[in-house]
């Protein structure tokens, strides 16, 4: 792309700006005064709920009108209202799957240009240039469904770039990606920003990834506007501890590995014999897997996206039928046949607990208390026993104050803690976790690691499918590394 065609970088000016979503009592953002000069690169930090995403959406002009909420003060993009400046602002969101609009790579990049009324010849020139700039050198008719998470984010970035924006906004663009994907996207952003000189605003919890790419850090506080603003190192030094406490991943401030008091004599509770795993029964993803799961020990299942980590975890957990070999849970069966997939649903409860990658998938009830009572009720425990267990688990995972809330309305960290609590309440000796730290802030992360360490010391066994290196280092006693079945075949992020 030639620099001649790049539009001038644009400024952002918020004066006394605030926004309240319709039906909410509190303001998502209020009394915000912030000026970003053209070409500046800003990392926007703050605890969840401090209004970072709301601010980005307002700048992008997609926050909606009076039906969607109430605004105060004003916000200007290049001196205009954000709605009038639409097309000058590009926004990249967190979830790779929800940003792909069309079925073919080229068409998807062209989509934004079409909406802006760019002439056809010019559109295709921009499409080719943009795909090249983000390093996605694929045929234009390549199916978007075959892209990995990192590739999808770069595709969305190419779509933003093709619109020739003066401002590029990134809302946690790498939160859902594996480590390779994070690097891919970060590097692509760096190239694009260097190429266009556009103003950049990034919202991210993981400071280390973006710190060297930005020249300014702004910290927002819920209801209080800007709390800190300035040169990255200075801001992080002065506010590091407070930021870390609010869930931001500040480099060098993560608590060291948890202290464990391993069991003196772990015993094997489950093992696999030449296990072959498959999502769909016809395609074997991996074969010849021999694992031993022991009480009081954590086994981490690692490997790139598409290698079958989640599939293996769910197969061990008795939730997916295996394709070959056997899963033998002789230390858990207690009178049942020793293959978990043959157990009844209620028989799993007291034997193997599974925490899903997306907590929402496992919520069943209208309140946190009812949610926690589901398992014990299935086990037909007496009501006082149920209450006792629920209260104990809730206080242990710091969700006691949320008992009456609807699980779907909780924050990301609260949802994660609740999903772990629902499993623990029936006291299974084996815990299977599928990407437990995915998209979590540093505070939830630390709590989760500390809590799992406690459980392990008490004698529970843990199997975790994860691509989180720090999690593995902090917790795992053993690591099983899987490789992608066929590297030539790009795959979507596993569900």
């Amino acid at each position, binding site marked *: 792309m030639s620099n001649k065609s790049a539009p001038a970088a644009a400024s952002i000016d918020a004066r006394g700006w605030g926004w309240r979503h319709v039906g909410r009592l509190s303001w998502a953002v209020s009394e915000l005064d912030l000026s970003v000069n053209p070409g500046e690169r800003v990392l926007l930090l703050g605890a969840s709920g401090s209004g970072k995403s709301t601010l980005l959406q307002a700048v992008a002009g997609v926050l909606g009108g009076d039906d969607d909420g109430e605004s105060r003060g004003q916000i200007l993009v290049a001196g205009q209202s954000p709605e009038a400046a639409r097309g000058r602002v590009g926004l990249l969101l967190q979830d790779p799957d929800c940003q792909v609009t069309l079925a073919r790579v080229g068409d998807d990049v062209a*989509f934004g240009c079409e*909406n802006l009324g760019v002439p056809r010849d010019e559109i295709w020139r921009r499409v080719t240039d943009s795909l090249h700039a983000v390093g996605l050198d694929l045929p234009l008719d390549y199916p978007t469904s075959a892209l990995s998470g990192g590739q999808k984010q770069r595709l969305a970035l190419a779509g933003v770039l093709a619109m020739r924006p003066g401002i590029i906004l990134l809302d946690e663009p790498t939160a859902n990606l594996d480590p390779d994907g994070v690097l891919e996207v970060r590097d692509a952003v760096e190239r694009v920003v260097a190429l266009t000189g556009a103003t950049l605003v990034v919202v991210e919890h993981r400071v280390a990834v973006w710190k060297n790419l930005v020249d300014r850090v702004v910290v927002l506080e819920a209801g209080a506007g800007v709390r800190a603003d300035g040169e990255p190192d200075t801001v992080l030094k002065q506010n590091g501890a407070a930021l870390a406490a609010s869930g931001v991943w500040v480099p060098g401030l993560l608590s060291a590995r948890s202290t464990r008091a391993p069991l003196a004599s772990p015993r094997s509770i489950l093992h696999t014999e030449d296990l072959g795993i498959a999502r769909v029964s016809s395609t074997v993803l991996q074969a010849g897997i021999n694992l031993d799961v022991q009480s009081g020990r954590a086994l981490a299942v690692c490997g790139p996206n598409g290698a079958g980590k989640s599939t293996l975890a769910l197969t061990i957990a008795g939730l997916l039928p295996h394709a070959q070999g056997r899963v033998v849970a002789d230390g858990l069966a207690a009178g049942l046949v020793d293959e978990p997939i043959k157990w009844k649903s*209620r028989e799993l409860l007291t034997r193997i607990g599974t925490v899903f990658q997306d907590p929402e998938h496992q919520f069943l009830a209208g309140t946190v208390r009812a949610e926690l009572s589901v398992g014990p009720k299935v086990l037909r425990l007496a009501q006082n026993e149920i209450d006792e267990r629920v209260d104990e688990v809730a206080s242990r995972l710091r969700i006691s104050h949320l008992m009456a809330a609807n699980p779907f309305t909780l924050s990301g960290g609260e949802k994660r803690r609740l999903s772990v609590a629902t499993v623990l309440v029936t006291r299974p000796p084996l815990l299977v976790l599928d990407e437990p730290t995915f998209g979590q802030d540093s505070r939830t992360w630390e709590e989760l690691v500390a809590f799992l360490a406690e459980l392990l010391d008490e004698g529970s066994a843990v199997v975790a499918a994860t691509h989180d290196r720090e999690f593995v280092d902090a917790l795992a006693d053993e690591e099983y590394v899987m490789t992608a079945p066929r590297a030539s075949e790009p795959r979507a992020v596993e569900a």
Partner: protein
Amino acid sequence: MTLFAPPVGSRSVNKINPVSKLIVSAVISLAVLLSLDWVSATVALALECVLIVWVRLSPRQLVLSTSPVWIAAILSGFTILLYGRPSGQVYFHFFVAQVTDGSIELAIATVLRGLAIGLPAVVLFVTIDPTDFADGLAQVMKLPARFVLGALAGFRLVFLLLEDWRSLERARRARGVADTGRLRRFAGQALALLVISIRRGTKLATAMEARGFGGKGPRTWARPSRMRIGDAVVIAYGVLIAASAVTVAVLSGHWSFIGG
């Protein structure tokens, strides 16, 4: 699912605008639906063989994609055979079911009509790429872009929902509630899926809006969707099928208008 797989069928079929394919199958359906006789359907079927050969699906694709049509046509024919308006000689009688000269003729006509409508529709539609279809609907048929592209993008989410559904099912097994109450669980799961899909849809809408979708200015189209000579030929052939079917049926005295 072949929705986002490369389109099947011969090269010349894929060059035809999806809108033309829609018109052809609509014209044929209309003509065949108007009469209850077997002659019009037979004429249409015979002429449709040209279309089916031209589309050039592999035998496997042909069998797989048209099997629902065959099954539906034969089942409805069988029903008519037993319960259709009786006339002429009775061959078989059991309660209200009876097979007569009249019901045999009606049954044959029903099967043929089902095939005459279903086969070309299916064979033409499996060659349609959804993106091209949306382009055609918006540019040729002038349907509102907002509606057409919104539907196209939303359609893609269906595949994510399939995976969500399986995950919800596994989660219910893990939570201990998968042994009993299948119906109630299904309802709960459907509700959860609805919540998830609305979330997804909202995010997708935000992403599309951020790319200027639904803005006030004029929109351009990266992929032109035009009607070419080939489209005229295909539509003309569709009209020929319809006209021949009606003409032959009327001239041979078999025409039996549904209203009559």
